């Protein structure tokens, strides 16, 4: 009877500790797993959770451009635009040829100059500077 109780307690403890490890993003999950969990959270719009997962993934693989890309996007989503720019730059220094990363970065810069810091823009470009009169 005592032995069965002991086995039950040990089993319960092991399940509990596994739950803690996977639920809080512990050391048990690989960077790839964290990336996947973050991706799923982002697809559902849970950007704080996504950010947390991408940060954990980045802690495990600091130089992975795909993780850095996702981290930058999540930082954008939570409104940390300056941090996002820094992470985009870091990612591009590692993988300058990554077209998804480059496109994200361009779109971020376009958003930033249009909406966040429009005062930094230069003169109105394009048509008005054409000087092509009729």
């Amino acid at each position, binding site marked *: 009877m005592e032995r069965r109780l002991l086995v039950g307690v040990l089993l319960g403890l092991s399940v509990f500790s596994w739950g803690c490890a996977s639920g809080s993003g512990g050391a048990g999950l690989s960077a790839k797993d964290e990336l996947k969990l973050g991706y799923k959270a*982002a697809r559902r719009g849970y950007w704080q959770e996504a950010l947390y997962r991408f940060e954990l993934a980045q802690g495990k693989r600091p130089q992975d451009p*795909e993780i850095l*890309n996702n981290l930058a996007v999540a930082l954008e989503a939570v409104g940390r635009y300056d941090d996002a720019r820094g992470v985009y730059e870091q990612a591009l220094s590692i993988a300058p040829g990554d077209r*998804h990363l480059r496109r*994200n970065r361009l779109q971020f810069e376009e958003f930033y100059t249009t909406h966040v810091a429009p005062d930094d823009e230069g003169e109105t470009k394009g*048509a008005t500077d*054409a000087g*092509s009169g*009729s």
Partner: protein
Amino acid sequence: MALLATVPAVVSGREVRMGLRVAPKLDLTGGERVFIGPILLEPGDEGTRRVDVSAVRELDRYVRRLLRRQTRLNLLPPEEGLTPPTADVTALRGMTDFWRDLAGRHGADLVVAASVDVEVLDRTGYSTEKYVSPEDGKTYFRQVLIEETGFKYDILLMVFDAAGALVLEEQISDFQERQPRKLDEFTDMYEDLYTLENRLLGVFVPRVVLARRYLYS
């Protein structure tokens, strides 16, 4: 085996939609009492044209309607015959007493004033435009046909507090395309101007801008 070695790694992921938050330029509670006016006209070389008078009147209506619909600010009624002591915007901007008195007369927390310069464009031609390719990151130049007929606006938006101090100044440029035959119609001169609306609202209320980004999975 050799075939396997040459197959590139499959990259998975997809584009996700997201809302990017943009904080307002002014730190407001949302229920401030706001007086709109005066809307001034930038003096031009050609004297005051009919389009100028309409631009001023329409801008007043547009700002009022936009803030009433898109914010919870308490808009105060306009003052009939309000004439600023000078038409020089630079000088007027520094006239603290004028703005303080105006705010005091109406019990306003903020006074929103503007100066508008409108240019009627009617031209067509080719232009060389710089283009950065998102595919390879290189810069290219391309010829673009420009057909410009419409109104080009330069608006200087100024916000003063109850003490008459200038708390925000925003230069906004926008262009409204018009059919050549409608260049002498001045109703709805500011309708559907995305930049103007965004910049103007962005002064007073937070906004969410929809965006798409690629995520790796």
